[in-house]
């Protein structure tokens, strides 16, 4: 089995990536045409990788489950993208972005990867502007910036509240150009069902066409998974309905290690849940915390009156409002990192100060910003977010404060990759949210877009080429004439038959919702040994029930949405257990992972002596306990400290 070699290049932190690029192996242009690359997923990481590799001369095949590559869930990112440009002259630098990201991640990410991320961040902004991405600008015509959580500088570039959309459409336009030129073969409405490994190397994938139901195989010299995060294991999340962890789980079962699965981000500012029929949660961008002030009533009787609808927020005078983030963390105030903001919201609600009819909400108030800046400025900055909030809740956030509550948003954990973004399976790479690499135990706001595009535009084009430098002699394989491909295809078909044959009583959503409840209650914002052990048992029972009692109507041939969902939920039922196991073994609190046993004066207590490592899980077979491998984190360039968001120094 593969060893965990992170392959960090030698040299000073600042020189590692430069050294890597200067010494890497290249493929000559004539040989690039002989090489096929598969990219699964067309979000920021996938689309940018597919476009860049095709521009270089490789032959690319790209796959997505949506009807168009333009719809991947990167599109829903609202707030912005970080870069160390220091245009506002407020003291930013590559080092500071690197440092903030490592610290924000609670010292559980690799130094070299994060430094590279900060280093290429500036190139991303240049690239996007060149593509025609309409970033917000000042009246002088130069780019505008704003602040995000966990930073004391303004380094976030944005396009109104639709930054993810505009960046994705930029990558999609580059991808479209390459499709038009014939360099990328695009397969939409197609789901990856398995990987094909030949002689220890990943050589292709098996797919199901979601319209025709046809199962087929595709060869490539290497495969890149850019399939996003697995937040939907919790059923309710801010992810798209189709977002799933299946590609990652298929890779895991084929030998790719799964790193830090318990590190899941719970975003503090989402619209609270309102009913059992609810299908998803909607995020309100973190950028709102620039101008919105978070509070709950100081008096329990006020909270009760608010819950019963006997009082409105505007009835509570300023002196009776507890701006708990501003008071507890004066240096960062409302802009503390997400994990800190989420935990504090939960703490206040659990203590009986929550608002909304459920008691599970806090206020995010723009009254003060409107007084300070005027309604027009607030509207210019957040107009589309306010409109979205109003459409969903039927209340006007210009008049009444927003009500928000934490929700599952992003997964820092993912497929283990080394410095080259290579998984433990040679020839299989993972990029963007699908890998675990850069955010440690907590991701800072506006860093997901940065990482997705860094991986796709500026990392993979180098590291994939390094891998392929001795692969041009490998002749293209015709899957129809290859035993390994045929075997993999048959296994996929058998798996689909097995699902279809169950013909039980309950819909796929029934099981997904049950799983979501277990995950949220027992593997959510506060985790304990008891809750996690309990969760593992419940998930195992639920999984057995699923395989006995799920009902998938219709046929495997042709469009069958329930079959698509069943395939994804079957994987979630395994992934949920893996998350719980990882959370159980990590008996410390770090970033988004909070163990109730590990705290100090109400704050999370990290245990660097015992847990300063990446936990990477190896699949050992169906219903077998996976094996844990540890990649120690050696901080050579920064001093590991306790995270402090209370004082300025």
């Amino acid at each position, binding site marked *: 089995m593969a060893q965990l070699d992170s392959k960090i290049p030698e040299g000073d932190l600042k020189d590692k990536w430069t050294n890597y690029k200067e010494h890497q192996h290249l493929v000559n242009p004539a040989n690039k045409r002989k090489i096929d690359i598969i990219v699964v997923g067309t979000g920021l990481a996938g689309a940018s990788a597919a476009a860049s590799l095709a521009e270089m001369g490789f032959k690319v095949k790209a796959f997505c489950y949506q009807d168009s590559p333009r719809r991947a869930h990167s599109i829903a990112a609202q707030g912005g993208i970080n870069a160390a440009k220091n245009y506002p002259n407020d003291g930013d630098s590559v080092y500071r972005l690197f440092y903030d990201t490592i610290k924000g991640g609670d010292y559980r990410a690799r130094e070299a990867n994060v430094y590279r991320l900060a280093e290429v961040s500036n190139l991303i902004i240049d690239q996007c502007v060149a593509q025609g991405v309409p970033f917000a600008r000042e009246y002088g015509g*130069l780019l505008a910036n704003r602040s995000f959580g966990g930073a004391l500088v303004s380094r976030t570039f944005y396009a109104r509240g639709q930054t993810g959309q505009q960046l994705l459409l930029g990558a999609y336009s580059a991808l479209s150009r390459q499709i038009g030129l014939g360099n990328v073969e695009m397969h939409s409405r197609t789901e990856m069902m398995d990987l094909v490994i030949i002689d220890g190397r990943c050589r292709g994938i098996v797919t199901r066409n979601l319209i025709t139901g046809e199962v087929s195989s595709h060869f490539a010299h290497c495969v890149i998974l850019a399939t996003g995060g697995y937040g939907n294991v919790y059923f309710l999340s801010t992810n798209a309905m189709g977002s799933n962890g299946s590609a990652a789980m298929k890779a895991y079962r084929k030998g790719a290690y799964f790193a830090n699965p318990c590190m899941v981000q719970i975003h503090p500012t989402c619209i609270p849940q309102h009913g059992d029929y609810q299908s998803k949660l909607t995020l309100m961008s973190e950028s709102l915390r620039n101008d919105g002030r978070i509070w709950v009533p100081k008096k329990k009787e006020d909270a009760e009156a608010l819950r019963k609808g006997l009082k409105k927020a505007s009835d509570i005078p300023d002196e009776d409002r507890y701006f708990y983030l501003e008071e507890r963390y004066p240096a960062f105030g409302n802009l503390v990192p997400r994990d800190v903001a989420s935990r504090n919201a939960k703490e206040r609600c659990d203590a009986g100060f929550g608002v909304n009819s459920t008691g599970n909400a806090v206020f995010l108030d723009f009254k003060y910003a409107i007084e300070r800046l005027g309604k027009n400025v607030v509207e210019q900055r957040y107009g589309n977010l306010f409109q979205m909030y109003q459409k969903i809740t039927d209340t006007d956030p210009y008049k009444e404060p927003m009500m928000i509550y934490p929700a599952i948003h992003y997964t820092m954990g993912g497929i283990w990759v080394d410095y080259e973004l290579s998984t433990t399976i040679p020839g299989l790479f993972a990029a963007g949210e699908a890998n675990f690499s850069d955010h440690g135990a907590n991701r800072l706001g506006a860093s997901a877009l940065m990482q997705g595009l860094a991986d796709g535009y500026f990392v993979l084009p180098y590291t994939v080429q390094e891998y392929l430098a001795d692969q041009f002699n490998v002749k293209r394989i015709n899957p129809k004439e290859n035993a390994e491909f045929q075997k993999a295809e048959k296994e996929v078909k058998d798996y689909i038959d097995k699902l279809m044959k169950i013909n039980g009583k309950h819909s796929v959503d029934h099981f997904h919702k049950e799983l979501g409840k277990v995950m949220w209650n027992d593997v959510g914002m506060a985790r304990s040994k008891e809750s996690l052990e309990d969760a593992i048992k419940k998930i195992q029972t639920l999984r057995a029930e699923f395989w006995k009692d799920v009902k998938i109507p219709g046929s495997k041939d042709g469009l069958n949405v329930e079959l698509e969902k069943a395939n994804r939920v079957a994987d979630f039922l395994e992934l949920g257990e893996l998350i719980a196991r990882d959370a159980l073994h990590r008996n410390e609190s770090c970033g988004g992972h909070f163990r109730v046993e590990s705290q100090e004066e109400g704050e999370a207590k990290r245990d660097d002596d015992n847990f300063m490592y990446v936990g990477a899980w190896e699949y050992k077979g169906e219903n077998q306990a996976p094996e844990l491998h540890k990649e120690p984190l050696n901080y050579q360039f920064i001093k590991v400290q306790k995270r402090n968001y209370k004082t300025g120094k």
Partner: protein
Amino acid sequence: MAEGHKSLNLTLKVWRQAGRNAQGQFKEYTVKDISTEASFLEMMDILNEQLIETADPDGPVAFDHDCREGICGMCSLFINGRAHGPDDDITTCQLHMRKFNDGDKITIEPWRSGGFPIIKDLMVDRSAYDKIMQAGGFVSVSTGGVPDANAIPIPKPDADEAMDAAACIGCGACAATCKNGSAMLFVSAKVSQLALLPQGKAEAAKRAKAMVAKMDELGFGNCTNTGACELECPKSVSISHIARLNREFLKANVKD
């Protein structure tokens, strides 16, 4: 959340069509106790759970959706004769049941446009929009070797107007609403966004010509300025962009 949510009992008249070449027809279903706080698609989820439970011969209703927050452009649906239903400036997934009354009969149809063939029930094939984008909806720039992002100042009003156009989500409501089945609003949004920015200017005329030619080739109709597209666009993309497209298109033809 808003006070006083209510429950609705509704009759749904839904277009069912087994496949692209199959004969379609309306079928009626009833759903009960739908909360006014639920979204329209959550109401459709409830209908589908019901159809699975009762083993309905047509199975659950197929419809496109993904992000459910109004940005991916995957959801569609004509609801009571309007693209994205009876509310303005939103997509179907953002429509909430409080817009309906107890006892309502709601008619639900797919996009009906020559350019968007039906795949199943309410799901249509919008790959034509991707093909139009592939014909020219980009700046011909490859990764790397580009100037600093602040090298070229762009006047804020131009950047803002480009952003207005770039807000297009490619959902297809414009072509589905247009009596001519024209995709001009979609095409103009991209042409206009890129023509407004210095980075896109070099290819502006060429881009307009290539995208319009592809639109024509794919069977979309011509624009007769009825303005219906602008009215139904969930992102309020203005038909003034069609005027800019026409100017760029004219320039390209004058040059030829």
